[in-house]
């Protein structure tokens, strides 16, 4: 029989009254001892069997339940003298100051109180927080010098943190405090913010202490057979001991001084029992010197109950291992090692239709893949299949049983890489069981996970329910996440070799014979018919564009500028010699090259168009095939990069040296001008700052110039000498690296900076003893004129390390800061959702936005932020007419 679980509708918070504590307490705890000599718990001790069971096999003396059934029961300690609850000390202070010391009435005239009461009611009615009114009331009442009701003059109350109150010169004992709080009328308590149903002011001063059930503070038995008690138990033992002594002393009529000392000690123990990190109170320590983890510490902070056990929960059916790339599987898939597949299971309900199949799995057992790990009977009991003889079980299986079978090809699983910064950090993949021990993933999904393969590990979760599986497939599958809601463009797409491969294949002048074309298409799994070849001088050939065109929807029209576009003043459009102007008409790429802007992650215009106009299935297919084609293309063409990609001609090197010499000379001139005082000062800057800025500017210009020269020569050598430069190809096609990287490798690394300035730190007046004091020259302040290829001299190397170290520190600081910011953002905004009337509201039902983003649009469905691309629609319709007219 299945029990329908009860649903928590509401939770109401309140204070525990002494009566209530006595009512719920199953046992009065009186002795500080826990176990007797035989190791049995003592009745009336802290481990009283009435408080519940923790040892397996025993039954609870209160409810008769066993471990797991019995939730545990409270006990109580009758305190010999009342004690202030630390958590409420501040609140008590505020209230004591606001009430009369004699009659206990609020120190405000009746009409004023009535006014506050009305206001509070009004606030509550509209769902606003009434705290500010209560604060204001308490503040005003504090000012009153004489009681309006009994005409008693009020004395100043001092609050000596954490738990002492002093009135005038007399110390108020907790008993005095409690008496005063008792005198407060219900009406007054209400306007002071008390909900009388669940809280009375005097309950903030404890007379009875609830003892939590043993299940809350289980003792552990060490290997040596020794018992080790929980921190809370230790603390409760302390409280009991002092309480006992206090009681004895009071009964024996000990001097007031001794009683007060013991009372104070009891207050200390109860204070640290609630919170062991109160300012001004030395934390209670374990014998080893470790501070005890008491109630507050259990709840608080990242490792506390709330954040680590309630807001986040541990799960079963998950796996974690190293990831590695596999360009041959679809973006929707994940390669799962057989080892993992045998461990993770999916529950399958046995039906007449699948019983034969399921029996086969059960027969294989847990060791042979594909098998099953255990079967579940309709009553919920489980039988493990981790045994040799499974025949008996197979006999018994009938419809209605549940078989937990191994993960198999095609199952939907969740795949995740931390830090999970956005929703694309957890996506649903289809399983492909594979040999070896790593998870395999398609390279196109690296950008959303921000994954690489330098040892990254990822997590995999096997979904257990049908609803969850359906939701994962429809909403979380990789292909559904191609478009990022952050900017409304693709976040999944080609990277690195996919980009350079496509670029190499589609560059002007690249030709494939019929044979080559067929090979490439076959390898990429493209079965489309080849179009007519281009005939030139009697020779037939195919271009890369023709091959890629086969992957496009037949009616796609698109024009955009490729990544390689140099942004010339006059654009030659279709006739661009570099192929930077991409024109696609009716599914055919007429001109241009494919590079990062076509199907790269974050930038792919063509991919973007396909997802938005033809759906995610089409986009996934396009991406899978295009990347395969590109990979096979680049494999065929051949591509490698090495240090010789940074080789420059002697002439180029000389020009670079010259520029750098000139720059250093110019820096010297600037310094001279500064020394002579003829340097023109920038408005609002000191002379030194001006000099620094001018020097930085000069040097960075020089570096850029050397970079341009290097690039110029690299370009020339590939164009004129036919010597392809792979590094440059990668940079311009957007596959990897930038022109700045090339500059630093081939020409000049440039100025190293710490905190945005040239390097200044080190010895007095100089960075290193190799320079004269006061030398402000380029090299003395961290200008690195060598290139990475040439190598750095020792001084340059040192400066470079300084800059590099700052970068590392910067990254470390940044991750923690941005992580906290994101946590705050999430916490502030998590409850907002779009309602059926399209407004955005929070949980209170307050409208935050009438339409999301003013136009009600979902950013991932927009065109890079544009709701409707009006001009594109008009043009496509008008162009259609024009092209019809022409034909």
């Amino acid at each position: 029989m299945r029990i329908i679980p009860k649903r928590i509708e509401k939770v109401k918070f309140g204070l525990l009254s002494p009566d209530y504590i006595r009512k719920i307490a199953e046992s009065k705890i009186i002795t500080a001892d826990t176990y007797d000599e035989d190791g049995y718990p003592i009745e009336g001790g802290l481990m009283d069997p009435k408080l519940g069971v923790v040892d397996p096999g025993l039954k609870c003396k209160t409810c008769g339940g066993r471990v797991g059934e019995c939730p545990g029961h409270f006990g109580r300690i009758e305190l010999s003298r009342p004690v202030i609850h630390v958590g409420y000390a501040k609140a008590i202070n505020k209230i004591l100051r606001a009430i009369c010391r004699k009659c206990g009435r609020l120190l405000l005239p009746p009409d004023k109180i009535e006014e506050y009461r009305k206001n509070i009611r009004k606030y509550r009615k509209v769902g606003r927080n009434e705290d500010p009114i209560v604060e204001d009331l308490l503040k005003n009442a504090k000012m009153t010098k004489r009681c309006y009701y009994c005409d008693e003059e009020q004395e100043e109350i001092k609050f000596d943190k954490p738990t002492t109150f002093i009135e005038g010169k007399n110390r108020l004992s907790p008993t005095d405090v409690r008496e005063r709080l008792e005198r407060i009328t219900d009406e007054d308590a209400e306007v002071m913010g008390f909900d009388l149903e669940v809280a009375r002011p005097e309950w903030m001063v404890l007379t009875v202490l609830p003892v939590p059930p043993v299940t809350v503070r289980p003792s552990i038995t060490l290997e040596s057979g020794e018992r080790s008690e929980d921190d809370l138990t230790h603390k409760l033992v302390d409280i009991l001991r002092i309480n006992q002594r206090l009681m004895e002393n009071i009964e024996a009529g000990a001097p007031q001084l001794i009683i007060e000392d013991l009372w104070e000690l009891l207050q200390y123990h109860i204070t640290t029992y609630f919170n062991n990190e109160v300012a001004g109170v030395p934390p209670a320590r374990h014998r080893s010197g470790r501070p005890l983890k008491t109630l507050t510490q259990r709840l608080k902070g990242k490792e506390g109950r709330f954040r680590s056990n309630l807001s986040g929960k541990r799960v079963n059916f998950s796996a974690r291992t190293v990831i590695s790339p596999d360009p041959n599987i679809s973006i929707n898939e994940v390669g799962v090692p057989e080892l993992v597949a045998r461990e993770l299971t999916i529950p399958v309900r046995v039906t007449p239709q699948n019983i034969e199949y399921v029996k086969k799995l059960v027969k294989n057992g847990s060791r042979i893949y594909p098998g099953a790990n255990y079967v579940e009977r309709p009553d919920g009991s489980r039988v493990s299949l981790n045994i040799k003889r499974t025949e008996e079980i197979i006999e018994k299986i009938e419809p209605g049983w549940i078989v937990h079978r191994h993960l198999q090809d095609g199952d939907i699983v969740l795949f995740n890489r931390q830090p999970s910064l956005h929703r694309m950090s957890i996506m649903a993949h289809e399983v492909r069981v594979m040999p070896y021990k790593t998870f395999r993933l398609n390279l196109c999904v690296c950008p959303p996970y921000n994954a690489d393969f330098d040892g990254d590990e990822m997590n995999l979760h096997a979904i257990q329910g049908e609803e969850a599986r359906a939701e994962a497939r429809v909403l979380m599958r990789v292909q559904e996440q191609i478009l990022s809601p952050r900017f409304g463009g693709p976040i999944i797409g080609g990277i690195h070799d996919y980009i350079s491969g496509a670029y190499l294949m589609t560059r002007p002048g690249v030709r494939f014979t019929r044979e080559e074309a067929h090979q490439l298409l076959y390898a990429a799994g493209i079965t489309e018919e080849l179009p007519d070849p281009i005939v030139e001088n009697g020779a037939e050939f195919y271009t890369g564009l023709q091959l890629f065109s086969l992957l496009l929807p037949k009616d796609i029209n698109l024009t955009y500028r490729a990544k390689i576009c140099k942004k010339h003043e006059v654009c030659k459009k279709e006739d661009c010699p570099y192929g930077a102007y991409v024109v696609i008409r009716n599914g055919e790429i007429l001109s241009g090259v494919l590079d990062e802007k076509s199907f790269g992650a974050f930038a792919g215009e063509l991919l973007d168009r396909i997802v938005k106009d033809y759906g995610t299935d089409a986009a996934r297919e396009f991406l899978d095939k295009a990347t395969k084609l590109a990979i096979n293309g680049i494999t065929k063409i051949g591509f490698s990069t090495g240090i010789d990609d940074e080789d420059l001609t002697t002439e180029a090197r000389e020009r670079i040296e010259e520029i750098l010499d000139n720059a250093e000379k110019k820096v010297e001139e600037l310094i001279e001008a500064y020394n002579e005082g003829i340097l023109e000062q920038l408005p609002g800057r000191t002379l030194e700052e001006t000099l620094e800025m001018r020097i930085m500017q000069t040097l960075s210009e020089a570096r850029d110039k050397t970079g341009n020269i290097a690039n110029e020569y690299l370009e020339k050598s590939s164009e004129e000498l036919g010597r392809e430069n792979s590094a440059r190809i990668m940079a311009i096609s957007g596959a990897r690296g930038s022109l700045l990287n090339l500059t630093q490798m081939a020409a000049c690394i440039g100025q190293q900076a710490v905190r945005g300035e040239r390097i200044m730190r080190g010895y007095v007046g100089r960075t290193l003893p190799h320079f004269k004091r006061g030398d402000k020259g380029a090299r003395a302040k961290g200008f690195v004129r060598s290139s990475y290829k040439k190598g750095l001299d020792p001084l340059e190397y040192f400066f470079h390390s300084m800059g590099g170290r700052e970068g590392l520190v910067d990254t470390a600081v940044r991750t923690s800061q941005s992580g906290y910011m994101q946590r705050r953002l999430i916490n502030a905004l998590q409850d907002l959702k779009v309602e059926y009337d399209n407004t955005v509201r929070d949980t209170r039902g307050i409208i935050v936005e009438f339409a999301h983003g003013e136009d009600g649009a979902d950013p991932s469905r927009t065109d890079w932020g544009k709701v409707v691309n009006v001009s594109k629609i008009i043009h496509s319709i008008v162009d259609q007419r024009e092209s019809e007219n022409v034909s």
Partner: protein
Amino acid sequence: MFLEPDEVKKRIEKIREEIPRSVFSELEEELSKVEVTEEELNKIIEEIKRRYDYSLVEPGEAVGIVAAQSMGEPSTQMTMRTFHYAGVAELNVTLGLPRIIEIVDARRVPSTPTMTIYLKEDIAEDREKAKGIAKKIESVTVDDVIKRAEMDLIDSKVTLILDEYELKRREITLEEIVEKLTPIKGVEVEYNENQISLKVPNPSMKELRKVATRARGQYLRGIKDIQRVVMRKEGKEYVIYTEGSNLKEVLKIDGVDITRTKTNDILEIHKVLGVEAARNAIINEALDTLEEQGLMVDIRHLMLIADMMTVDGEVKAIGRHGVSGEKASVLARAAFEITVDHLLKAGIKGEVEELRGIVENVIVGRPVRLGTGMVELKMRRELEEKREEA
């Protein structure tokens, strides 16, 4: 057979209310450039309506979380550098992650307050007039124009040695300074060409110090809090950038274009121009900062964040002192920060946890009420019973 422009206007007027204003005005503009037939116009209108309908957010979408992620995820890629320049090399402006955090925190004063002051059209291109306004705005204290102040206990006087370069640059005369210093009570002012002496009647070090600080802090000209101004030509007009911000006073100055002038101090905008202006300021500042870093974030996410910060009519920070600290749910607050205090307080007030939010439902182990979890099915027992009877 092409439609007359007026006819086109009349036809699209009908859908004005159905599509966002920005789309409508773009449609108007684009259509004025081409000629269309009736059939084509209908097709265009249909397509626009279809597209707009497609791009609407679906009910249940967790827009808040998406917005928070869209701002949080790229922030890991931002730089921490606080220097940089916003078009003007002379001014320091906080950018990158620290600036984003500052915006989200709704700090009372930004770490580098700056204003961008535009001038009214008629004088914007006039260099001299712009300079005049710039001069009026920049605050100059005595401290800015002296090289040093010397305290002479023997003669019981404070001597201010003037910096002629600064005097010339800021066009301040000796007489002006003397005039401003004269009202300091109990002080006798003497001066010669490049120094001013303030004679103090009762000679004590304490008194001398007091006079010296008082004199140094004396305003000579300009608006309080604006330490420096830089003028720059942008296109044809001159724009004034300032270090330090005082929107209220700057807007009072004649010749300042109050419609375009802005400051990066969001709370000041709130004080001077109201919440709606503050909301826009949050959006613009965040967007500018992200764009400067080369990060693409849809403006709608920033709008939602700004709206959340300003719904209650005041600018609230994202965090425990603002939005998160004022949530209705005890558990949500306890799960965020300062766990115990919230729980204790809830006890006194007898707060009721309605379990409507995300964390609350996670805590009690129920599906959250977002997205597919928003759907509720209810069954009317009476109907069911009736059916059974039948």
